[in-house]
């Protein structure tokens, strides 16, 4: 699968070289610590040049992550990391783009942007940190919260069915879809690495417990219901990937591992073709364009 990886400028660095001076602000026991560790490892294993890495997030506990990663970075608005990242990527296809954020950020307020990141195949890696709750605002239900969750604004229990991010992203046409647990740092690192190496839109859902506000989905219960994909799972078959998720739903399971991978042109590649077709180049004489408006 190693196609041209112009988006990955490489250097030799160690895990610690990706750490900033800022101390992670998460609660003790928060799964986000694990995601960060996995991310450091993935970056070091690939050897991503931090000068060519842009780490972008929205708002939420999880969205604080870029402060802890040595890179260029943007801490944007709630739900808007995806389109901001799209702008960075299309303007500068030479950069490695890493987006991360929470379940509310990505699938509630930001939910309208997700289909388009995926179907347009924007060349970036999106790491969802799904704690099935709103952490930063202190414990309201999120679209991935289990229905029965009694929370801040649901004192009598919730009334809505949760959604499943990986099924969504498969439907949206993400060209790389995987799922892992924050407690499994090794798998997390491995999948983030593969996602970043993938040319196209890669989505990695990490179930990341929030011990402070979500007591029904703790690290243990995540682990208990997780189920590795079968060895013979065909990652190139979208129908099989959806089927695997549907079956897991039926059995109350959380499928982990690589669900789907597809090689297809990214939006920046297609746009580059279009420029070529138009005979475009930065030096193109503006007067030729202006001349078209002479009467």
């Amino acid at each position: 699968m190693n196609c041209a990886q112009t988006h990955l400028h490489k250097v030799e660095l160690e895990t610690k070289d990706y750490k900033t001076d800022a101390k992670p602000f998460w609660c003790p026991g928060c799964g986000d610590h694990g995601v960060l560790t996995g991310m450091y490892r993935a970056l070091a294993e690939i050897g991503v040049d931090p000068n060519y890495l842009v780490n972008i997030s929205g708002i939420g506990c999880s969205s604080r992550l870029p402060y802890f990663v040595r890179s260029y970075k943007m801490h944007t608005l709630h739900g808007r990391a995806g389109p901001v990242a799209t702008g960075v990527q299309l303007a500068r296809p030479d950069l490695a783009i890493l987006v991360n954020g929470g379940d509310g950020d990505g699938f509630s307020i930001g939910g309208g942007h997700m289909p388009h990141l995926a179907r347009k195949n924007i060349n970036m890696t999106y790491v969802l940190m799904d704690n099935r709750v709103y952490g930063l605002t202190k414990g309201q239900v999120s679209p991935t919260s289990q229905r029965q969750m009694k929370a801040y604004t649901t004192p009598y229990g919730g009334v809505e069915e949760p959604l499943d991010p990986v099924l969504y992203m498969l439907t949206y046409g993400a060209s790389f879809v995987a799922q892992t647990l924050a407690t499994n740092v090794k798998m997390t690192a491995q999948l983030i690495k593969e996602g970043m190496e993938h040319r196209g839109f890669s989505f990695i859902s990490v179930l990341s417990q929030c011990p402070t506000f979500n007591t029904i989905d703790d690290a243990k219960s995540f682990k208990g219901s997780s189920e590795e994909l079968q060895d013979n799972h065909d990652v190139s078959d979208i129908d099989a990937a959806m089927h695997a998720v549907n079956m897991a739903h039926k059995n109350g399971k959380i499928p982990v591992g690589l669900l789907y991978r597809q090689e297809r042109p990214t939006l920046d590649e297609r746009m580059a073709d279009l420029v070529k077709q138009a005979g475009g180049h930065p030096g193109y004489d503006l007067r030729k364009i202006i001349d078209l408006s002479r009467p």
Partner: protein
Amino acid sequence: MNKNDLIIRVAGEGGEGIISTGDFITQACARAGLEVYTFKTFPAEIKGGYAMYQTRASAAPLFNQGDTFDILCAFNGEAYDLNRSRLRPGTAFVYDGPGGDFEPDVPEGVHAYAIPMTKTAKEMGSIKAKNMVALGALSQLFDIPEQPLREIIAAKFTKKGTTVLESNLNAFTRGRELAAALPKTDSWRMTAPAEKRDVVVLSGNDAIGLGALIAGLDFFAAYPITPATEIARYVARHLPKRGGTLIQAEDEIASLAQVLGASFAGKKAMTATSGPGLALMGEMLGMSFMSETPCVVVDVQRGGPSTGLPTKHEQSDLFMAIHGSHGDCGRIVLSVEGVSDCIALTVEAFNLAEKYQCPVLLLSDGSLAFSTQTVPYPEPADYPIVARKAWDGKGEYQRYVITDDYISPMAAPGTPGGMHIATGLEHDEIGQPNYTGANHEAMQAKRFRKLDGVVKDFAPVEVDGEGDAELGIIAWGSTIGVVREGIARLRAEGVSVKGFYPKLLWPMPVEQFEAFGATCGKVVVAEVNYLGQLAHFIRAETNLRPESYTICGGLPFTPAMIVSKVKEMLR
């Protein structure tokens, strides 16, 4: 009746070729060396409905659509009905008859010319050529330059094959013949100047697209909306030639988000929208201001509030443009008078955004969006281009360092050692979140004092008239062009009146407003909105207490309205 300044209105059912007829007249006049200024109204429906295209052409520069037409060409009864009240004595009136769908009751003193447009076109085998018959007749009757017209028709139809071309040219000729057979009773004639200047003809929207290209646009993201979409169309056609990127976003929030991303990545980026879209961008504009990420946002205003009157003219987004984000949030707001400004001030918008690292809003309006005007050939090299302050790579990089001019150097991704965070949280000089009172006050002061330079650097305020005057008129946007002519007429009558035409609306060039006010007995602000939005800001920010003259009927002012308002105020 100045024969060197003629206004022809073509009106009828959308789809009958009204728009292309108007375009042919406009292009031909411009090609012949005349100045043009057009004005259109579109049907609200996609197909059918009343459409109108008015061309004002003159040997002298034009600044507005004029008071009313000198010549009306009505393709159908609805067009006649809607315009009948404007058929004053002396007006020339060309209509489809006999054989049209109406029989006009021509008012006294109006010069009527019946041209059987429908009938002739049918006879010639294609009802589609109806407008060519009309065009031929108009050309003959009013000396609309025949040669340029034939060239332009040819250029348009050649691609469609010789049969189509021939039938159109024949219909045109037939129209001329029909008209030649009629007694010419009026005295309207186009007179082209001997000398041709080097011009282009552009609509306001296209000119904004061109301005952006000249400024060095790299990235354009937008979501379609009337009346701004043509900017995207122009950019879509030409930006790829320059190697740039255009994306249609899923909504306006995403389009501005993409623009900020591209800008962070070191590129010049813009979006264009209208009121409803701008209303969705308030939060992201705050992000631009707080994170000091340059962006250019064009708002082509339309009739509001809410979905409002999407195809109509209004200047009513100023409140939101200046105050539309939460918190204390700054931005630069420019507005354009005409097509020439659409080029020059779009360039300026980029320059200011890049220099001051903040959002710059450029306000245009529905009438200007579709108005095509002649402007001198815009020589790209004549427009100064400003680049953002770049980090010199020395020492430890601090993205938000407080400098003498409060502008901090930027480092684009890929710059070794320039790693930093762009953040919407309050932060210290290196971008780390910091919520202490001292830091917040210092950083707010930094972000606002930075903008103090804007008024000094860039105050394209034009004062029309010298010395003291009994009355001063302040206008913005395309209303300026109307006021210019109103004032010229008033002066010719000996009325003591001055004009003040700001193009930088925010931050306000307060001193210049006040200096102008000091020379005027009374001051009035003319604008096309209900609440008197610029007047509000003038009252709030300057020592002036102007009267407000507002209309909001979906149409621009006319010079005559300005003239009579001034007379009323001075009575």
